[in-house]
């Protein structure tokens, strides 16, 4: 589904942030991506969603070399990836409901066709009563949950979550992890970037990708 071969990335003329990164993400797999702050977890995720281009190496995504994809193909590819950002990236002028429905709306779907599913997902992440609220009035944890719901709503083939439990309490963190596990069981490959060791300990079946000093180490 996704493979990196000797991928390197440097910003400007500085040192390489990522060096010779090589790994595969198989369909229906589950992995935690971890490492110290500044190790390049977010950068790695930005490379996967093609928001950055590597300085060197090959990224193959859904069977295609990412360097050869044109704009429309990149759009098509991104539609198969759900992303939970560390800084949430919710649109402040849209209600929570509209934010969560965004991936379906950009596909041109009629609002009536997804209303109940979006409402249900929001309710499940504990935001059923806040669906009309704007992100500016929500806590960090609420924004986090809305961001997760947005990433899940279109049933992505690959889910990338950057510190998805960083702003929620342990109980809710367990529930969110359970949702990711169920998503994985239903066929989605999941990559969760996290510092939270207790979260990783809750799901031993997951592969661990550890980034340190710009290099990636894999623990099966």
């Amino acid at each position, binding site marked *: 589904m996704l493979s990196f071969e000797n991928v390197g990335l440097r910003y400007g003329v500085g040192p390489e942030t990522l060096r010779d990164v090589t790994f595969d993400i198989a369909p229906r797999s589950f992995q935690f991506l971890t490492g110290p702050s500044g190790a390049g977890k977010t950068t790695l995720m930005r490379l996967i969603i093609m928001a950055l281009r590597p300085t060197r190496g090959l990224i193959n995504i859904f069977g295609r070399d990412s360097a050869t994809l044109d704009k429309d193909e990149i759009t098509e590819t991104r539609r198969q990836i759900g992303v939970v950002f560390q800084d949430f990236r919710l649109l402040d002028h849209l209600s929570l409901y509209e934010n969560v429905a965004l991936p379906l709306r950009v596909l041109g779907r009629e609002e009536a066709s997804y209303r109940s599913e979006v409402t249900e997902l929001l*309710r499940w992440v504990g935001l059923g009563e806040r669906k009309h609220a704007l992100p500016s009035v929500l806590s960090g944890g609420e924004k986090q949950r809305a961001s997760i719901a947005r990433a899940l709503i279109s049933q992505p083939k690959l889910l990338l979550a950057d510190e998805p439990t960083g702003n929620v309490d342990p109980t809710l963190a367990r529930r969110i992890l359970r949702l990711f596990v169920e998503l994985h069981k239903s066929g989605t490959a999941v990559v969760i970037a996290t510092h939270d060791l207790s979260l990783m300990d809750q799901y031993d079946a997951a592969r661990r990708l550890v980034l340190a000093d710009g290099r990636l180490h894999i623990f099966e």
Partner: protein
Amino acid sequence: MSPLSFASDLLARARGAGQPELTGEEDGLAPSSPLVPTDSVAGRSLVIVIAIMTFLAAIAAAAALLVAEASVEWRAEASSEASVQLRPTAGRDIEADLRKAADILQQTPGVREAQIYTKAESEDLLAPWLGQGLDLSELPTPRMIVVKLDPKRRPDLAALRSELADATPNAVLDDHHIFLERLGDMARAVVAVSVMIFFLIVGAMGIAVASATRAAVATNREIVEVLHIVGAADTFIAREFQRRFLALGLRGALIGGGAAIVFLFLARMLTRSWRATAGGEQMEAMFGDFSIGLEGFIVILLLAGGIALLTGYLSQAIVFRHLRRLG
């Protein structure tokens, strides 16, 4: 499995894993908000700029229409009149020449009326140049015959001129063609200037919209990035910007077009109330009675609609080009 049944299934299984629901659900959802925010200071400023530009463009278009219509009236009026001027000449009886010329004119097909101006009336015509109260009785003042022509069956003026010259050598027939030509030139010049002003205004507005669009893209950079990441195509994003600018353009164009209609209506009322004054007469001579009629109002409404569409189209094209360049 569709995404929707997927979500239901996923949630059911997650619940089955022992996770309780946290909250209830509210009924009723608001209609979808625009993805690009419409209500901003820059948006309001653009509405004002478009309103002013539409107002000016509508006034320029109305002025062109009014002058074009008025010039048709002036020319129709002037072409249905002619005059014969007789200069006093030594050895000739000017009164006899006047009668002879008038007889010839009245017998000419296409001449409706030939009215001899009395000596006093002819002298009155000179008053604007020579001043009031002068005794002109000793001066050899020319005399006039005012001729009304049938505009549908104009006489052969060359033949008439020759016949008059044979009968009264001191008679000069003036069919106002030089005046008419100048009048036509002036009207065409006014219309051309109005059209030029109209296009300049539309061009300036296009530049204002282009710069507002670029500013909007820069301001909403984060929104564009999120839309890209959730899988929005460039065409979708450009269409969202187009929707926003079409709405702003429509608002501005309707305000400007409405203000122009109110302005023209008030101008018409004022010219009617000033009609008795010299200034009012001159305004009326130039622009008619400021009545642009139904046709004119339709032109203004079409203009407002065109400006709104132009605003939407321009913004869409600029955003699309910008997004492609980003790619």
